[in-house]
């Protein structure tokens, strides 16, 4: 196995783990994403302790109860009279994973203490739990939308490249139109004619459809070019001479040639569409509160007081970068891999 393909495997499996772990968000998250702790707004990340005030060391980390400083809204003190060890597989809020309901959480502490790894937002909601559950929307939306955009792109690109003539002209002109339109404004206009309330599941589907549908033009142009060159190759012409049908030639000889490019495109498009979800939710076009997504979580950072006072509210933004790096590393490895194959 070549170095390039080993890399592809490594990055791809890391990404699979990442996306799979998002499915278990409800289990990993210690709290329900919309659970408000109204006496703990903008509490900083809970400190994990190993050494007690008496100096005694504990291997199992523990937290103290956090209470708000009297007369202040966002200042807190630890009540060190009792320690609350971090427990694993603790019972808590109910959640569902692929339709199965459960109430065991990976970790947590005994009530009334709380463990907020990434602090809380303005309503006292756990940012860590929201980040994980929000990833379900943001990451999955990216993958689904990229899948949709690529399928449309491959189908239309292949059609245009293979048949040429007026089909080619029509598809490519439409693609150019799609590239030229000012999408954000158009989407804002579309949102205003939709009904006032859209439930989160439908909003999510709508989001994926919109992002995917808008994005087909670029991959379509790429695929068209590949198909155009592939259909003139000798073995394709030979297959035709033997009387192969269009469908057969496309399936057997032309499209496989584009596989490398399609996969690379996928790895490039997913992060771009994750970002699109973030942008759309940021503008209020995505899923609505109280359902978290990275976009609507980041929207809170627009506020000057949040921007200057509560650094942990930036974490959804910071979380984006490792995800993107993984995808770009995969795209890079895929690119090298296909380059190797074709040479």
């Amino acid at each position, binding site marked *: 196995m070549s170095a390039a393909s080993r890399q592809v495997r490594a990055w791809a499996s890391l990404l699979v783990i990442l996306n799979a772990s998002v499915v278990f968000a409800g289990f990993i998250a210690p709290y329900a994403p*919309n659970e*408000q702790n*109204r006496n703990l*707004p903008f509490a900083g990340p809970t400190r994990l302790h190993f050494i007690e005030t008496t100096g005694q060391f504990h291997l199992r980390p523990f937290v103290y109860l956090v209470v708000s400083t009297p007369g202040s*809204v*966002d200042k807190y003190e630890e009540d060190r009279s009792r320690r609350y060890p971090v427990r694993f597989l603790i019972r808590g809020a109910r959640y569902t994973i692929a339709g199965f309901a459960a109430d065991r959480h990976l970790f947590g502490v005994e009530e009334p203490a709380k463990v907020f790894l990434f602090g809380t937002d*303005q*309503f*006292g909601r756990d940012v860590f739990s929201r980040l994980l559950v929000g990833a379900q929307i943001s990451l999955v939306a990216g993958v689904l939308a990229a899948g949709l955009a690529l399928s449309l792109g491959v189908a239309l690109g292949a059609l245009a490249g293979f048949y040429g003539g007026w089909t080619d002209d029509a598809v490519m002109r439409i693609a150019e139109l799609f590239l030229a339109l000012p999408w954000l404004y158009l989407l804002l206009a579309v949102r*205003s004619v939709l009904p*006032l*309330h859209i*439930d989160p599941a439908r909003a999510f589907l709508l989001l994926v459809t919109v992002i995917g549908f808008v994005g087909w033009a670029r991959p379509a142009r790429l695929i068209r070019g590949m198909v155009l060159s592939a259909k003139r190759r000798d073995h394709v012409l030979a297959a035709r001479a033997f009387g192969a049908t269009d469908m057969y030639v496309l399936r057997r000889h032309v499209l496989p040639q584009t596989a490398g490019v399609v996969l690379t495109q996928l790895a490039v498009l997913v992060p771009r569409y994750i970002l699109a979800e973030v942008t759309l939710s940021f503008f*209020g076009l995505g899923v*609505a*509160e*109280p359902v978290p997504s990275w976009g609507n979580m980041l929207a809170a950072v*627009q*506020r*000057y*007081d*949040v921007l*200057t*006072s509560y650094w942990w509210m930036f974490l959804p933004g910071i979380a984006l970068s490792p995800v993107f790096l993984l995808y770009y590393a995969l795209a890079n490895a895929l690119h090298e891999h296909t380059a190797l194959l074709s040479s």
Partner: protein
Amino acid sequence: MKRVVERLLTPALLIAVACAAVAGAPQRAAVRAEDLLVSRAEIGRPGGQLVINQRAEPKTLNPVTAVDSVSGEVIKNTIADLIHVNRETQRAEPALAKAWTMSSDGRRYTVTLRQGLRFSDGDPFDADDVVFSFRVHLDEKAHSGQRDLLTIGGQPIAVRKIDQHTVQFDLAEPRAGAERLFDGVAILPRHLLERFHTEGRLADAWGLSTPAAQMAGLGPFRFKEYVPGERLVLERNPYYWKADRSGTRLPYLDRLVFMPVTSDDAQTMRFQSGEADIASKMTAASFDVLAKARQAAPYKLVDLGAGLDYSFLFFNLNDLGSSKLPDTARKQGWFRQVAFRQAISLAIDREAIVRLVYRGHATPLWGHVPPGNKVWINRSIPQPARSLDRARQLLRAARFSSKPDGTLVDQRGDLVEFSIVTNAGNSERVQMATIIQDDLRQLGINVHVVTLELRALVDRLLKTHDYEACVLGLGNADGNPNTEMNVWLSSGATHLWSPEQSRPATPWEAEIDTLMRRQLTTLDPTARKRLYDKVQELVAQNLPFIFLVSPNVLVGADKGLGNFRPAVLDPHTLWNVEELFWRQKRSSGTP
């Protein structure tokens, strides 16, 4: 001969200036002695300018036709009224009127004007300007915002000139606190505006492109220049009719500079960096950010406590007919039940709103008169503590029931679910709606929060009635019940839950109509208070509005600004703009 008269007259004027009824007195003599009003504020030093941020750009400088608050903020500094409500004492005080008397039946007011005053272009002011101004404000075609207030018992106030410095006002029926009606009614320069008025083009007069020389007023400042998108500058009116105790003519400041800064956050940053000198109507979040750096900062911040604004949740109680919006009409079956509204009210955690949304800078509310309105509040309005159990009991009694999974259903088995709309630009309202959403989830009610642009929202509320519930706020400009007539009368345009009814839809709305109309004509203050107390009771019992909180008035100003005495009444910081001064000379290049 003429000279003799002048000589005789001048000392007479100096001794008893109020005695304006010197028949046929030559005007020229009167101009010499100016009836200046002497301010009791700290004596300041002249010079400098004040930079003020605004949410948007003003649309006009015409005091008659301006309707938006941004234009109003600018215009207030260029106009004067006969009788003015002191924002600090909340009492009516003489302004352009030197004195006034009320007849015993409360229907005739005789106002004596200050003599020798001039408009900001130097032209003299007298009773003709007053009569002209009221003619304009009362002219239906002029679309003055003041017209409704000046129409009493269905008839416009009759204005008559007695002599050059005395004007008489006749009311169709007695009106409690009628002198307050004069507050904010701008006295206009007849010599500049009469032409526009007779030609019916008043709305075209005094736009932002009008040359400064064609505008004049009696306020402390006058228009200087307007640079679109950048700034609007007012300059000192050299003829202003107030002076300080040392005899220096007010205002002290040379210029007011208004700059459009659209976002709250940008305004906060500009104030923090000293690019703006004054901050009014700050959000609690901005206030706290600024407060954190207060020790080292060159500004001071003031929390004036509860103001006169109040926010509330209300349901769509409009008569929707049978045609459109069948879904909303079905839900109105719940909304119309008082028990349902009471249950919602009991479930709302007002303390959480105060703490989480306003960071402690607000007061929870159960009635429509906020605690900032000390004169009119009915302190016996019950303030039931939040109780989900009590809310559930009420819902059960109203034949709502819970499904095993906790969701609430009505007697037909329909899920109780509705959306709350609010304006996207107001993050505090959006946050309140988010808290209510979570509160009601605990009753098993599924609430969706939908944010809309303000204009689209108002359109739904007042025109199409296509909404289910809404979080909104209202303010009372001077704390007086009369200014809230259009909210509480069932025929009122701001009777938000069901505006402009041809007849009251419910017995309690009919009763409120009667009480509000009666308090309007009751002269005895205690009797009037009793009537308004009853209105507050009825509102609190029937909850057409489910009251949430009243935000505190939060303001700030540069530490070097003298006579800065912010008030709970609007305009909070600029009500005494003529008295404001800089303690130290500041380098004030033109911005």
